[in-house]
């Protein structure tokens, strides 16, 4: 019997509402004092293709998901056995193979699946007549005849059934379902959903022997519900708090969600969100706005970023104060795998345009860091005028619910980074004729005082050509040298200004037998895996690279050269961080655990891969086990 340690999964066709019910479940658990980690897997398609949502629940903090599924909820047959019989090259083989021995499978009796055909004799099958139950609920309010129109409720019903297995208190679920349909106009729907879920709950208790079902779920130790945030929400909030006044975007998976989230805040928060005609427009509009005195930002993914590179060079040579570019990585190359995840864009972000120019690249590893780095980005842009400032986030995609401790405090406002209202938009004020203003004045630290259009006496010129302090074009040798040094010198300045803990993280024992090196979202999985290994008596630590440009080469080099054994972990084909580390430190990491199938690492994969390396094995690419 495992209490409060559950790996739950719901699968079904896109459009069948599985994400809604998974999120209801997650929220319910959180409110019940449990901790939750969730991920969503879906195709780049609107309707009908297989998607699934994992929710992992426990009493203590979680930062990753696991491979075994203790309770699988299947709305269709494909979820169980895959699409091999529809397609010449199967995309997947269903999730039955993932179910933990002793685990349970809740499925629709209408799905056309016969458990007898399965070779998984070690798991329990719970066929549930989902439509029947919906019909019953409808009949109770005299609408039995219309039941086909309510098919979408299946996911809620199946959710109810699955939780009955775990003896989860129905009341905890009920309130969240009801919340989902808070609005007055949902009065009927709300009641129906709760009722149908209840019927399913009872159906399971009535029809199956669930007494010795090995996975139990009940209220957890944490009284107050955590915030369950998706990456784009946290980044959006960080932008709001940092005083971003102008966000541009062009729709693209998975970055769109951030901008749509911000679009909804416009009225309340005095933020202007502009949907542009493409990403070239997005970046250049943001650069124009930044130069004109607002904190500006844009968000995109790989294909959109590829179109922004010209604008990034422009922002840099003109020393624009920003914009902040948020890049949500996805599976590449080219259009690639739009809704899947990969850490394949690092090298592009580091040299995103022709010539040598300064910009900043950070790669936060979790939501807390995403908040910090996004927030700081606006300040680094404004104060240091490192003027093209770019933020990179990987894999904080739409399906991820997460709840680091920081977000539990209702007063939480994020780190402030010395930032106050007075010095927000503020630019230097120039008194007209009294003093001449030069936008690109040569100063000891390379930072020129900044003006913006509309200011009295702050007129300036700016150009994407090489220029003089006045901003007029020059091709002279002297000025060229001065300006290159002025611009590039800001990278050294940034390395001094940016707090060390925003540059890198070193987690775990200093004298570890193995040092894991990684960046971005594998962080959580690595930390969870290290915990598992620690329990087995193994000493592993983790060097997290976070500031990618300028790169804290000295510290990273020191750590690596002292390490007993080093393994690189990345979700891409070519070990891009490994390449950066070699460039910056000369240290070439031999062992590389890479994954490039568009799926994130699971805790189990990570534990296995690291154990292998610890045991002296040669590190290999990790491939999601699909059958």
């Amino acid at each position: 019997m495992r209490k409060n340690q559950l790996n739950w999964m719901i699968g079904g066709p896109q459009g069948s509402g599985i994400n809604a019910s998974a999120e209801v479940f997650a929220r319910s658990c959180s409110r019940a004092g449990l901790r939750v980690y969730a991920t969503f897997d879906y195709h780049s398609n609107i309707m009908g293709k297989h998607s699934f949502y994992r929710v992992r629940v426990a009493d203590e903090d979680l930062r990753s998901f696991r491979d075994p599924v203790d309770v699988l909820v299947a709305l269709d047959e494909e979820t169980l056995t895959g699409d091999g019989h529809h397609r010449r090259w199967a995309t997947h083989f269903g999730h039955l193979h993932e179910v933990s021995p002793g685990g349970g499978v809740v499925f629709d009796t209408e799905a056309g699946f016969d458990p007898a055909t399965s070779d998984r004799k070690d798991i329990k099958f719970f066929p549930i007549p989902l439509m029947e139950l919906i019909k019953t609920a409808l009949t109770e309010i005299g609408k039995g005849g219309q039941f086909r129109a309510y098919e979408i409720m299946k996911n809620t019903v199946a959710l109810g059934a699955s939780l009955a297995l775990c003896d989860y208190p129905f009341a905890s679920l009920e309130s969240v379902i009801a919340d989902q349909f808070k609005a007055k106009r949902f009065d009927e729907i709300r009641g129906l959903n709760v009722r149908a879920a209840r019927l399913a709950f009872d159906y399971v208790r009535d029809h199956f022997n669930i007494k010795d079902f090995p996975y139990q779920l009940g209220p957890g130790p944490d009284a107050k519900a955590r915030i369950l945030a998706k990456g784009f929400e946290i980044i959006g909030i960080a932008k709001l708090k940092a005083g971003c006044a102008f966000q541009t975007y062009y729709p693209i998976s998975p970055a769109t969600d951030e901008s749509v989230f911000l679009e909804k805040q416009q009225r309340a928060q005095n933020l202007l969100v502009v949907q542009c005609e493409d990403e070239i427009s997005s970046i250049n509009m943001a650069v124009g706005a930044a130069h004109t005195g607002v904190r500006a930002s844009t968000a995109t993914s790989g294909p959109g970023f590829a179109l922004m590179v010209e604008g990034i060079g422009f922002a840099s040579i003109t020393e624009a104060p920003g914009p902040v570019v948020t890049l949500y990585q996805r599976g590449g190359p080219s259009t690639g795998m739009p809704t899947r995840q990969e850490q394949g864009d690092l090298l592009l972000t580091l040299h995103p345009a022709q010539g040598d120019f300064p910009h900043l690249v950070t790669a936060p590893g979790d939501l807390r860091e995403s908040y910090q780095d996004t927030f700081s980005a606006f300040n680094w842009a404004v104060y240091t005028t490192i003027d093209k400032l770019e933020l990179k986030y990987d894999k904080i995609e739409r399906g991820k619910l997460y709840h680091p401790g920081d977000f539990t405090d209702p007063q939480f406002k994020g780190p402030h980074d010395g930032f106050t209202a007075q010095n927000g938009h503020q630019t230097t004020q120039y008194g007209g004729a009294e003093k001449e203003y030069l936008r690109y004045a040569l100063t000891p630290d390379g930072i020129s005082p900044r003006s913006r259009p509309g200011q009295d006496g702050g007129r300036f010129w700016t150009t994407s050509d090489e220029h003089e302090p006045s901003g007029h074009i020059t091709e002279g040798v002297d000025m060229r040298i001065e300006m290159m040094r002025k611009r590039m010198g800001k990278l050294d300045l940034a390395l001094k200004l940016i707090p060390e803990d925003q540059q890198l993280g070193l987690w775990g024992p200093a004298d570890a037998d193995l040092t894991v090196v990684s960046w971005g979202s594998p962080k959580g999985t690595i930390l969870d895996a290290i915990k598992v290994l620690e329990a087995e008596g193994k000493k592993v630590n983790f060097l997290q690279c976070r500031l990618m440009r300028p790169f804290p080469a000295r510290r990273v080099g020191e750590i690596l050269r002292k390490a007993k054994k080093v393994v690189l972990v990345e979700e891409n084909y070519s070990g891009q961080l490994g390449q950066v580390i070699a460039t910056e430190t000369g240290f070439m990491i031999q062992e590389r655990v890479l994954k490039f199938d568009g799926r994130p690492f699971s805790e189990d994969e990570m534990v296995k891969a690291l154990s292998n390396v610890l045991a002296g094995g040669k590190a290999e690419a990790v491939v999601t086990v699909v059958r």
Partner: protein
Amino acid sequence: MSVEAPAKKVSVKDFRADLHNDWCPGCGDFGILASMQTAFAQLQINPDRLAVFSGIGCSGKTPHYINAYGFHTLHGRVLPVATGGRLANSGVTVVALGGDGDGYGIGAGYFVNSGRRNVDFTYLVHTNQVYGLTKGQASPTLQRGRKTKSMPERAIQDGINPIAMAVAAGYTFIARAYALDVKYTASIIAKAIQHKGSALVDVLQTCPTYNDLYTKEWYEGADLPEKRSRLYKLEDKGYDGVVKDPSDPQELIAKKAGAVARSYEVDPIPLGIYYQANLQTYEEAVSERIPALATTPLAELDVFHRDVSPLLEAMR
């Protein structure tokens, strides 16, 4: 665009930047520059409240010669940058400009989509039928079959019709001028700036260095059996492109169709206002979303005391 008067009266001279101008002698761009400066002085624009944005090309150098906030941006991207600037600070008069290659070729996507927004700016296109700065290739306004000095082959793409494009794209002020007629061009630019919404002024510009077809002499019709200008002013033939009642779809359509029909006239070529209508600007639409913007530029709004706790609370 409404214009805040400067503290003390400004003259054309006040809009001249102290920088040696390196266009070729006789370049039509000198005329456009002078027209702009004249219009700014006419309108008594405060140079501190004026921002001039340009693309890349010979024409793109213009802002450097103007004493105002000057942005010499990227080839083909001037409209997005200018739009960002204008939306960030609606207290600033925004004038964008660039070459015909810049605007109608590489920039065509932004030209079209900016028309859809109707942001309150003026956009001047220096139409010289060539890519000047890259040494005289055909630009998108050169007609099929024509060949200027440095082209090895005739053009085999049609020349664009910028006026018709602008109508279709949604510009609310559409005019044409001629660079060497500074007085008239200045008056058109002044009207364009005064217009509330996106104004296009397509300025026919001579490039004595590379364009040996559309020269000053050609525009003046010096080669004609009987010398006469190849240009005329729309108002001189009684044409009026101004929409009187913008809420009347019939009038809007009629005026648009009329402008399109005129835009195909090639000899003589019409100058003046082809079309003008007072329609909702992007800024107006935006301030329906963000009421504070109706009175305060974005760059001056307080965005540093936001309360996000309700957002966080909703995530529990």
